[in-house]
């Protein structure tokens, strides 16, 4: 079970690297913002998986805080595009 968790984390890290490719390549700033959104969604399960790997439930709070604040950041980016912050 632990090996499967590690393999899932490796797969998620590879997915993070793929979306970093789009982050570099992205022709306009909004493609980069989409890559930021996807990276947030990838990193949250990685944090939760790390919490199970070390068996400390305090790590889940970091994922929750990150979910709330990255929503704030992406909404700020979208509002910036629409009509200013």
């Amino acid at each position: 079970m632990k090996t499967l968790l590690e393999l899932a984390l490796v797969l998620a890290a590879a997915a993070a690297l793929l979306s970093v490719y789009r982050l570099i390549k992205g022709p306009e700033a909004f493609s980069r913002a989409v890559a930021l959104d996807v990276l947030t969604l990838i990193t949250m399960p990685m944090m939760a998986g790390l919490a199970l790997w070390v068996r400390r439930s305090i790590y889940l709070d970091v994922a929750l805080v990150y979910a709330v604040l990255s929503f704030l950041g992406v909404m700020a980016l979208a509002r910036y595009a629409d009509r200013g912050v």
Partner: protein
Amino acid sequence: MNVDILTLMNLVDLLICLVVLVSAIGVAVHRNLLAAVVFAGVASLAVSYLFLRLAAPDVAMTEAAIGAGLSTVIFLIAVRKTRETEDGS
């Protein structure tokens, strides 16, 4: 003492370190300030995962709060009040 370096978790750490490196270089070289703000957000996200991996959840939580939420919003307000691209050298 036998320290095992080539584990799967260290592979994950290595990939995330690559993410930090690439996004930090992106912050430095990009002329479009909106793209640089997004790069800074990604860098703080990956650094937050690395802090968590180093068994410091409080530091990781602070990094997530400051890096993802506060500094992105403040940078966006600052960019809105000035110009979006940095011209010249």
